[in-house]
Structure formats: structure tokens, C-alpha cells
């Protein structure tokens, strides 16, 4: 009964109810796996479906993710290394010389909502910082954003640096002036013209 309460709490964007639900289940001695997968992750999968169908708007999806996080915080101390809560690590940032970050923030928030661990470096990030973070966090994906045509060359420089560092991370790029043709030209592993597409890309990259 209460597992469903956690699920519903997430779908109702209710942080307190989600946390309380998890607490109740833990005290009742319920299986950690079930709380995690059926209560929390299962709820986020449904949130994802409702967002894709247009039923949930972006702020609602983000609030649902917050509620799920609140429940997860209560569960965390009880999780063992077998329990994977993260689908992979995304290092993301806006490239050097560019302060624009709305799109990047949206991608970061959606990646987190989709179950990735996101290391958001912020804006105006130089190549070395991207590489350092990718190494430090064992990134699965390095995601680069730019809004200015004048800062797009920094994307190529970062991709080259990531490759030269010899790390396994894939690179994906996006931003208003960026195109698929440009991504192919500079050797990015992927390109998306919107945030949901970026999440899909990252998901696909985890399975290959």
C-alpha cells in the first residue's frame, strides 16, 4: 500500500510525502530494492512518459524529480554498492567565452531527472576543466553547450582534448547555432537540437 504512496507522492510533486513514504516503508522492514525500483525509479519512469506525451510540463517534471530526490535522500544510507541509482555520469558545461546557460541548465536538470549523475561545471568553462572533471568523475558523457558562433570553436578544442586524454567518455554538443553537420565536422559523438533529445542520446550511449 505504502509503496504506491511513494509513487503517487512523486507524481504529485510532494517532497515531504515522498520522504515520509520511504521512511514508513523502511520502518515496516520492506525490501530496499522494491522501495527504490517500484517506489522511486518507477515513479520517475512514469514522469518521463507523461513529460514525453506532453501531459507534464517542464517545471512539473522538475518538481517530481525533486520529490524523488527527497525520497532517495532518506533511502541512501540503506543502499549498498549493488544498488545503482545512477545510469551514468554526465559532465556538462557551457564552453569557454560563453556565459549562456539556460539550455545547458535544462539539459542538466533533465539528465538528473532521467537518473543520471550530473556534474554541472557551469558556464565559461575551459578545455582543461572539462577534461579534469571527466577524469575525476569517470564521466560517461561530456556534454558541451554554446550559444555564440564565436565560442563554437571552443567545442572542437574540448572534444580534441577529451580524446587526447584517452578517456572513454563520449562527447555530445548542442546550442542554438550548433548543427548536426557541425557536430560531425568537429568529431563529436552526438548532437541534439533539444534537451529531451540529449537525454535520449545519453541513454543510448549507456547501452552501447
Amino acid at each position, binding site marked *: 500500500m505504502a509503496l504506491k504512496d511513494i509513487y503517487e507522492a512523486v507524481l504529485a510533486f510532494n517532497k515531504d510525502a515522498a520522504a515520509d513514504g520511504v521512511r514508513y516503508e523502511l520502518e515496516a522492514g520492506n525490501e530496499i530494492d522494491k522501495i527504490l525500483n517500484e517506489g522511486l525509479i518507477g515513479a520517475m519512469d512514469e514522469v518521463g512518459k507523461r513529460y514525453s506525451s506532453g501531459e507534464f*510540463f*517542464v*517545471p512539473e517534471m522538475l518538481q517530481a524529480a525533486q520529490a524523488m530526490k527527497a525520497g532517495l535522500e532518506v533511502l541512501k544510507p540503506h543502499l549498498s554498492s549493488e544498488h545503482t541509482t545512477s545510469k551514468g555520469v554526465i559532465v556538462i558545461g557551457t564552453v569557454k567565452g560563453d556565459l549562456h546557460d*539556460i539550455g545547458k541548465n535544462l539539459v542538466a536538470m533533465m539528465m538528473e531527472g532521467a537518473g543520471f549523475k550530473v556534474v554541472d561545471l557551469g558556464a565559461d568553462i575551459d578545455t582543461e576543466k572539462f577534461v579534469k572533471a571527466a577524469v575525476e568523475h569517470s564521466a560517461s558523457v561530456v556534454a558541451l553547450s554554446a550559444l*555564440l*558562433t564565436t565560442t*563554437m*570553436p571552443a567545442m572542437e578544442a574540448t572534444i580534441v582534448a577529451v580524446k587526447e586524454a584517452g578517456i572513454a567518455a563520449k562527447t555530445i554538443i548542442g546550442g*542554438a547555432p550548433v548543427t548536426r553537420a557541425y557536430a560531425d565536422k568537429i568529431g563529436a559523438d552526438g548532437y541534439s537540437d533539444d*534537451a529531451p533529445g540529449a537525454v535520449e542520446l545519453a541513454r543510448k550511449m549507456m547501452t552501447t
Partner: protein
Amino acid sequence: MNKAILNFKQKNLDTIHKYSLQLLHDTGIKFPSEKALEIFKKHGFHIDGEIVFFEEKDIQKTIEAVPSAFSVKARNPEKSIRIEEDNYVMAPGYGPPFIIEPSGEKRDATMADVNKFCKLVQTSKYLDFNSSIVVQPTEVPQETAHLDILLATLLMTDKPIMGSSVSEMAARDSLKLAEVIWGNTDEPIMISLVDSLSPLQYAAEMVDSIMVYAEAGQPLIVHSSCSLGSTGPITIAGSLVISNATTLAGICLAQLINPGTPIVYGLGGSPTDMKTGGYINASPEDAKHVAIVTAMGRYYNMPCRSQGALTESFSLDYQAGMESAILMTTAALSGVNVSLHACGTYGSMLAMSYEKFIADEDLCGAIKKLIQPVEFTEDAFSMDMIKELGTSGNYLMQTHTMKRCRSEFFIPDLNIRTIHSKWLKMEPRDITLRAAEILEKRLNEYKKPEIDQDVEKRLVKYVKERKGA
């Protein structure tokens, strides 16, 4: 009540101003520039890191220093423009790196497009100045693209131009190129756009541009805008305070450097598309901000700038017409003084289209006619003629009618006025194809404006040397 959007209550404007002062005083605005921070410090402003805090007296001095009107000279003196209340000047798109073809395909913009748009601006009946970066060419090195753009703009058009604000160097290059034509002058010979970053900050290149142009006494459009619900509150009131405070801060810097620097006050606001988190800017909310910027401009006694004929559409359809017209009509009826993007943009300013440009020119022409004051001269009343004709009413035959038949009404170039049977036989009938025909005609009509050969050589030499450097 349905005119409320055009008649803001004084107390609400006072509150926007009061809260802006509060924000400027308590939260401050970020200026990521050592040089700018030094200037603020020198004038006694409180700084914390890169955040500058403003006292009410600083803002009051700023407002008092800004001229309420100014002119911008054109290479052809007859085309110089006046930026002042009761005047509305228009420029085409500014900055998109893409072109949308009639097929709907999106492609990168190039210098060939810059040149083509120069021809259109030069032959335009309705555009008053050249935004210079009508498109951002992507095939040339980006660090020197502004040189290629400005050279084309100065040689191919003789209307007033915009300077570049992509970097300090680009701003200085803009002034140097202008110097070749006008010599060393502090009279306004270009106007440049500075956009802040919401919330509450400026990017370094924009701060640099403020400083370079203000020092040279060259006008600036200082513009701030929030993405409602994303970089500012979802509610207009809150986002207004952010944008107003940020714009005032940028204008303040300009006035500290050079009191009396001509300014056009810019403020916008766009709803975030809550379904995708994306940026949209052709909405009724954007149109509300067009009305708001005029109210704020009048409040501060500064000329004001709005967006132009924007649309989310990517083709010449009802949506493109509707959205573009709502924005331009609101601008006209509010009393906006400057609009950028008045011709040619699609898809939230991401792309330009030649066909949309041609279509928007009819819109600009119609708008200019709309705001042209009704003439109340004796000749316009034509009482003698009315009494003489009485009930016979045959005005088509009168000399009075004939004298004015080409100038009294707006005559569209693209929009149709025909009977149905003729419409059925039109070839082509599709508006996009008809726009393409007009485009061809305009490009063929284009004549390069006269320029002193020595001036031209020096302009070309400057660009060549700077690119080679």
C-alpha cells in the same frame, strides 16, 4: 480596460522603479571586467567581487544625463535618422546564423547572404538603418567576421549602420572603419546593441562594448530581457524589475564614462515554453513588453527599443503573419522609437528568410502608414470641393484625388488586392513564390551607392591589414 496595457498606472511604474533601485542597492549587478569595476570604484560605488551596487543618486544622475533625442548620421546625409519621441525607425534582423529556404530547409548563412541583405536594405522603402549583422556569416573566421560584415555594409549601403559588439576589438574596429569615412568625430555615426544576460549581469564583451562606444560618444541600445519562468520570475512584474535594474546599470556605466552618451532604452520579456523549456519570443507576452518598454522609456525620458516582426514559424504562413503583426502593431500604437528585427526573421530569431523579409516590408510599410498622423489641413478637409460636389459624389474624377492617389494610401508590393477570378488565374499565386519574384527584381534594381574611391580603398586596406594581422 482593454487599453490598460497601453496606459500604465503611474503608481505601477513608480513601483517598478522603486524595486529596481532596491535590487540595484541590495543585490547589485555583475560586471565581469576589471576596467569597468575600476571605473565604478573611482566614482565611489560599492563593489563586492564583480558585483556593483548602486545608490539612488547614481541612478538619478544617470537618468538626467541621457539625452531624450539624438540623430545618427548616414553616409548619405539625406538618410540620417532621428531617434526621438514620435519617431519610429526600423532595421532588419540582427544576428541569426541561419537562412530558411522556401523549401523549409535550414542552411548556414554566409557572406553572400550578408551582401544580398545589404542590397535589400539599400533598396528598401521602409527600413531606416542597416543592422549590419543582418545575418552572421559562418564560413568566415569568427574573430574577424565583423570586419567582413562592416566592410560590406559600408560599401553596399549608405543608410546608418550598427557597430559590432561581439568583442572590444570588434567595437574598436567599427569605430576605426567609421573614422575612415567621417574622420575623428564624436557625432553619432553608428548605433550599437548591448544585451545584458539575465538575471542581473553583463557578459564581458558587452561591458567592453559599452566602454568603447561610450568613450567615443557613440549611441548604445542597452537591452535587458528575462525568459519568464527560466531566467526571471514567471510573472512579468518580477522579471521587469530584473530587466529594468540591469538596463539602468549598463546605462549608468556609459554615463560615468561619458555623460550624455546617447542611449536607447531596451527591455523585453519572453515566456519560456513550459512544454519544452525552450525560448520563444513572438508571443502576446512579448507584445506586452513592447508596450511596457515604451512606458518605461517615457518614464525615464529616453527613446526606447522593441523587437520587430518576430515569429516562431518557419514559413510564410498565417502564424508568421499574425505573430509579426501583433508585435509590430503593438510597437506602433505604443510609440516605440526603434525596432530591430523588423524584417526577415523566423523561428525565434534563429534564422533569416529572404521571402519573409519581402513580406515584412509590406508589414513595415503598413505600420508606418498606420502611425502617420491624420492630416487636418484645409486641403485635407477640402470643404469647397465637398460643398460643390454635394450629392453627386464623384470624387474619382477630381484633381484633388488624382494629386494624392499614389501617396495617400499604403500600396502593398506583395499583399494582393484583386477579385477572385483574377486571383484564381494568378501565376504564381503562392505568397512565397511571389515574394521570391520581388526579391529577384529588387536584387536586379540594386545600385551600389556612391563612395569616394580613396575612402573605399582605405576601408578595404584596413580590413585586409586587420585580417592579415
